């Protein structure tokens, strides 16, 4: 029996951090992605090259910023570029290895909604909107999605496609002219989903320690398939947890 000594945010953060390789360029958003990237940089990936969409390239903040444009990002960056430059010369030109995205809704083909819940013209909930996400999803070599698992968030079809994952299945990205691989991993508080190589449908490939597969299935709004080679996420190490907690201020 596993003794869970971490929070759901911490296992998501550590799992995401492990997905990053040393030397990668990484387009970082605020929240868990920012924590994860900074954990990776302080553990196994000291050469991670972090870009925040405010234009700070190669930034190495010594504490976590609250926003994507905090002064700490500027002070520690290799260079600070304008907004058109970060989107056109860096993202659009295909210079970013991995992008991190969150979502209010995600569907079985990893399409992302951050625009509205309900009908666009008469929404139930108005969300912040697209930001940099559509082009991050299109142009990074790969995308990692981080979000909490619930059947309200993991839906068969999103109410609004803000950013394209795998469209309606295999081959859609190529047809749409999207050059990156799209979402290759979805990391939640329960486990890890990855697109099936044949169909691009998200399947459960990993569960976190202490989580039962049935829990994940129940928290998913479509008939979730389980990978034959399902793995259990290795528990976060004490070292990883202490780095996460030193950044977030948690004990």
């Amino acid at each position: 029996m596993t003794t869970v000594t971490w929070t759901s945010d911490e296992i998501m953060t550590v799992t995401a951090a492990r997905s990053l390789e040393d030397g990668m360029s990484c387009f970082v958003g605020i929240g868990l992605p920012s924590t994860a990237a900074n954990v990776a940089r302080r553990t196994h990936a000291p050469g991670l090259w972090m870009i925040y969409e405010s234009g700070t390239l190669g930034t190495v903040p010594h504490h976590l910023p609250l926003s994507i444009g905090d002064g700490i990002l500027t002070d520690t960056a290799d260079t600070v570029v304008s907004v058109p430059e970060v989107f056109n010369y860096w993202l659009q030109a295909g210079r970013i290895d991995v992008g991190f995205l969150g979502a209010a809704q995600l569907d079985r083909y990893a399409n992302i909604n951050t625009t509205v819940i309900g009908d666009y013209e008469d929404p139930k909930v108005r969300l912040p909107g697209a930001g940099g996400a559509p082009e991050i999803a299109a142009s990074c070599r790969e995308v990692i999605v981080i979000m909490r698992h619930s059947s309200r968030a993991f839906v068969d079809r999103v109410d609004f496609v803000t950013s394209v994952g795998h469209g309606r299945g295999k081959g859609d990205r190529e047809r749409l002219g999207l050059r990156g691989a799209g979402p290759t991993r979805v990391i939640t508080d329960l486990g890890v989903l990855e697109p099936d190589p044949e169909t691009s449908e998200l399947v459960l490939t990993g569960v976190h320690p202490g989580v039962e597969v049935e829990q994940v299935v129940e928290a998913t709004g479509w008939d979730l398939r389980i990978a034959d080679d399902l793995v259990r996420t290795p528990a976060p190490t004490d070292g990883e947890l202490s780095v996460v907690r030193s950044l977030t201020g948690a004990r």
Partner: protein
Amino acid sequence: MVLPLDEAVRTLIRDGDTVALEGFTHLIPVAAGHEIIRQGLRDLTLVRMTPDIVYDQLIGAGCARKLVFSWGGNPGVGSLHRFRDAVTHSWPVPLEVEEHSHAGMANRYVAGASGLPFAILRGYSGTDLVGSNPNISTVTCPFTGQEVAAVPAVNPDVTVVHAQRADHDGNVQLWGITGIQKEAALAAERVLVTVEEVVDTLEPVPGQVLLPGRVVDAVSVVPGGAAPSYAHGYYERDNSAYKEWDRIGRDREAFTSWLDELTATPGARPERSGETTPDPAGSTS
């Protein structure tokens, strides 16, 4: 050239104008936004990549008819509740939205600054933004046959930015995260800049943007004019104010109290704000 803020706003901004108050987390022209609220300007089309709390305030005060944007939120905190209320309940007035991605908006400003009718980018393909916004289209490259996204130039009637400093000739210098301010200023018909200070000589700073005085219509000296956002080298971002706005913005009554307090503070010109200061409380159901 150097004018008090209330006079600059009154001179340069009119009801019905398309106005961009730009700033990407840094150097947000908050004081100028508050002066727009005080003067009771109406029917504005507000443009900004990242409308945050000052746009929530402008929207809640009923200044805007339309919002053109790419991400509307309280950075690091959550949603904008006055914006939500306007979109979902038309409070205090209906708000039309035109939304893009950041890449789309950035290129719209580049086209505007460049005197071009539209911009191209790799973007939007496959998203529902395409069908919901007629200002997103495609164009075929005449050389390669590739299809790329096309968006129209944005040319605000007025762009408002905040900068660290200016000189007496109206040359404006900003540095740190410089965002989209250069493009937004050069795309506009009229430009209002609030600054922390006016100095005799602008010493060069690495990574600076310099807006020559010939493209700046008015400079207003407003120390702290970007707060609660920050001015690199002058003051830090007040993160607690962004968190506190979540509480105020969520509630119409709390917001209305906030608005009453703002419009009652000195700097308002009674002859104008007295007549037209919004009273959203009156339209609360």
